[in-house]
């Protein structure tokens, strides 16, 4: 009898595998449940392990969700490291405290085509057009999910969502009641701890507060020396959710942090020795407060009004950057006629910055900016209509964002997407969108000494060439970069235990940043060669991203993804001076729970050659393979002991070379232990 069952199961799985595109093949247990009485149904053990492998995202976009459980089981201790779980994202660790994170190429320390939001607050800074990843943190245990949307998200989310949007969403405070204490330590994750306490403040109000901190130790230079990139951080925050009435909910939250970041840097200077290295100690601090009111009129109509204030101050060796941002956002969703679901919104953002170049103790400086302080404003509006063409089968989504910013003026960013669900098991979608990446402050206003070529002795002494200083200069006429993206995707649950998500895209970029050599000048015995930012570069990228989940056994799940990217620039104007992200990336994760109280995880990653450009020249950073392992044991309810090994394949490996300043740093193998106690 048992044998028979197994046979049925096998033939059922084979059958489904063969008939990929056929309607759902109903396997074994479906009718079993229908034959049971209510009493039996209430007594039977239920499992929902395969749920993740079966559910299909309904968004007509390349969307991927990283869950709280995924983060925990990956052993990732920071947001950027957790982002390695998603397909299509290029995450490279520059050193212990810096990351280069991008979607679909164009990676860099300030990768400028990826928008990042934490609970609705924009983490992308106007100063450099990018994200200071080391400033962005949350209590990892309280993350609900990270939504990663590859491709333009500008119609809904606004400018700079050119190649993707990352939404980091923390849990509602009602879901984080009680205490959670996490402490641990190891080789790279030297010591860390976090404590959160959640409570019910009144009948309709819940809240939580947390504090966390860590010391992370340094990595290794390629030469084998200590890289001196150790850093520490303390952060605290709170969230309060109040149900004011049956229709109104109010969320208020905030964070505050302080970090000390060490790095060994390299700078050029015009006087001998024409370069110097320094051990910089940078400090950064910041905070934010956000409040959001949501009013629900009916199941198909609600609005939200959100306000936030964000501030940060950062002292780097070469410069000081501080910024205050005030943002107001209104969104209204409602149903119209029988087939339309509309969302529209208005936004206003005010920014005030203070950026100045620092003078090093040896008297040289590499960074100047004029003016040092600017106020800027952003007005935006958007509208999107999701139109049901055929009930439960076919949808068309049209939308656009219109905004005006002080750097590039008016921008329109439309998008059209279609989604077809021929069957419960299949989703097909396609879209075309336009998005822009608006200019940063430095791109318009700064001047950076990028490199100095020391004087060369000529064959007929005593004559020699003077030192040549290359300076990168901002350009007040620098405009937005733009892209038109064509995307298509297919999602399916191949069987009851396996799902597949495939996306293809083609991006056509115009007006990309290109440093154009200007007229050289002679100054104090040196030749100054300016490189002026222009919008002269064109390029295109295309690629494929595949993500699959296979629940092989009730207690063993596989998550695999593969990304292929091709980047091509118009070389007719010269060397494009732009980094090229790895062509291929693979992530393979196995999550095993052989017993209820034991988790075993392994995570294998392959990253292809990374082409970086910068003051160290153009470098091909070799591809690498590495893996992480995690074992966790829960001896008592609420207590978990975990041991995590990271980057185990080699003693050290190089992932990325920053455009300037940071000396190439290889990431060391690491190991840490962690105790979590919920009570």
């Amino acid at each position: 009898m048992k044998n028979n069952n197994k046979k049925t199961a096998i033939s059922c799985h084979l059958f489904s595998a063969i008939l990929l595109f056929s309607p759902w093949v109903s396997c074994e247990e479906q009718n079993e449940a229908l034959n049971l009485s209510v009493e039996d149904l209430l007594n039977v053990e239920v499992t929902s392990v395969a749920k993740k492998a079966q559910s299909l995202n309904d968004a007509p976009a390349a969307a991927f969700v990283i869950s709280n459980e995924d983060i925990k089981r990956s052993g990732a201790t920071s947001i950027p490291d957790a982002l390695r779980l998603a397909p299509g994202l290029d995450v490279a660790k520059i050193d212990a405290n810096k990351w280069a994170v991008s979607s679909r190429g164009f990676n860099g320390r300030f990768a400028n085509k990826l928008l990042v939001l934490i609970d609705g607050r924009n983490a992308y800074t106007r100063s450099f057009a990018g994200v200071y990843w080391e400033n962005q943190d949350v209590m990892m245990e309280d993350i609900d999910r990270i939504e990663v949307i590859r491709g333009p998200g500008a119609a809904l989310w606004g400018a700079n969502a050119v190649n993707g949007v990352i939404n980091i969403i923390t849990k509602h405070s009602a879901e984080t009641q009680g205490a959670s204490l996490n402490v641990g330590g190891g080789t790279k994750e030297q010591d860390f701890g976090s404590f959160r306490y959640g409570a019910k403040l009144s009948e309709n109000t819940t809240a939580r507060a947390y504090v966390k901190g860590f010391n992370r130790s340094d990595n290794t230079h390629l030469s084998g020396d200590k890289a001196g990139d150790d850093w520490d951080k303390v952060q605290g925050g709170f969230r309060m959710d109040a149900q004011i009435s049956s229709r109104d909910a109010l969320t208020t939250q905030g964070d505050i942090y302080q970090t000390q970041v060490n790095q060994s840097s390299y700078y050029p200077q015009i006087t001998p020795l024409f370069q110097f290295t320094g051990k910089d100690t940078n400090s950064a601090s910041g905070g934010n407060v956000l409040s959001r009111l949501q009013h629900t009129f009916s199941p198909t109509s609600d609005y939200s009004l959100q306000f936030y204030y964000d501030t940060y101050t950062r002292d780097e060796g070469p410069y000081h950057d501080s910024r205050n941002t005030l943002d107001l956002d209104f969104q209204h969703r409602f149903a119209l006629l029988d087939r339309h679901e509309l969302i529209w919104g208005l936004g206003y953002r005010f920014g005030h910055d203070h950026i100045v170049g620092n003078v090093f103790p040896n008297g040289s400086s590499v960074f100047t900016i004029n003016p040092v302080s600017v106020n800027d404003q952003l007005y935006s509006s958007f509208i999107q209509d999701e139109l049901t063409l055929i009930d439960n089968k076919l949808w068309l989504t049209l939308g656009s964002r219109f905004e005006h910013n002080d750097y590039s003026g008016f921008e329109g960013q439309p998008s059209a997407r279609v989604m077809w669900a021929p069957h419960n098991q299949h989703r097909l979608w396609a879209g075309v969108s336009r998005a822009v990446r608006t200019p940063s402050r430095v791109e318009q206003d700064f001047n950076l000494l990028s490199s100095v070529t020391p004087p060369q002795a000529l064959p007929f002494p005593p004559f020699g060439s003077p030192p040549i200083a290359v300076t990168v200069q901002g350009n007040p006429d620098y405009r937005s970069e733009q892209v038109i993206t064509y995307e298509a995707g297919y999602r399916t649950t191949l069987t009851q235990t396996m799902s597949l998500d495939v996306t293809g895209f083609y991006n056509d970029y115009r007006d990309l940043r290109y440093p154009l050599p200007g007229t050289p000048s002679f100054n104090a015995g040196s030749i100054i060669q300016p490189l002026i930012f222009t919008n002269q570069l064109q390029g295109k990228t295309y690629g494929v991203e595949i993500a699959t989940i296979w629940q092989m056994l009730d207690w063993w799940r596989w998550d695999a993804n593969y990304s292929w990217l091709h980047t091509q620039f118009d070389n007719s104007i010269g060397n494009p001076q732009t980094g090229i992200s790895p062509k291929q990336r693979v992530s393979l994760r196995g999550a095993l729970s052989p017993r209820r109280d034991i988790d075993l995880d392994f995570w294998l990653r392959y990253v292809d050659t990374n082409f970086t450009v910068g003051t160290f020249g153009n470098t091909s950073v070799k591809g690498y393979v590495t893996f992480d392992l995690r074992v966790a044991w829960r001896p008592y309810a609420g207590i978990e002991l975990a041991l995590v090994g990271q980057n185990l394949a080699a003693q050290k490996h190089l992932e990325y070379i920053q455009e300037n300043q940071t000396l190439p740093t290889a990431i060391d193998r690491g190991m840490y232990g962690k105790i979590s106690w919920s009570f």
Partner: protein
Amino acid sequence: MSKRVGKYLPLLALGLLFNTRLPTQAQSLEEQTVLAALALNIVRFTTWPSETPMKETIDFCVIGDNVIQQSFTDIDHKPVGAKTLHIINLSRLRNFEDCHVLYVSELKQNILLQVFAEIKKRPLLTIGESYDFAAQGGMVGLENVNGKITLHVNLTAAHESNLNISARLLKLAKIIGN
């Protein structure tokens, strides 16, 4: 000895591939399948007020993703007394008047409350997937407690809508309200 083990390794691997359940958990069933079967039974134990417009079918509306929709295809067209069950997948949160049963897999809290407000006192049996669903105004909440489904019934909500849930079912349920 090790050679013999080696010989059987491929077989063992194959066995692992296809045996989708640990022997110790052989009695377990997939949660959504059980929820769908329970929902069918709950409908069978419910009596609608006589004035309810109801022809040959009991219209069972489902709000949920593809997994939920899939699990309910198995109970589509099943007989309920003299009538048959008819599954309708709601892609929009409207036209509740077309439903006799509303099954909500997951909805944001604020929206769920407005759904309850909208259908209040209508002869519409509401079934959801948590204790909170029943506590906040739904009629039946199916909660997974340590791997088994617990049935919560909000009798007040059912009575307000003039729905009668059989005592045989109530015996197996935890009652919320009077």
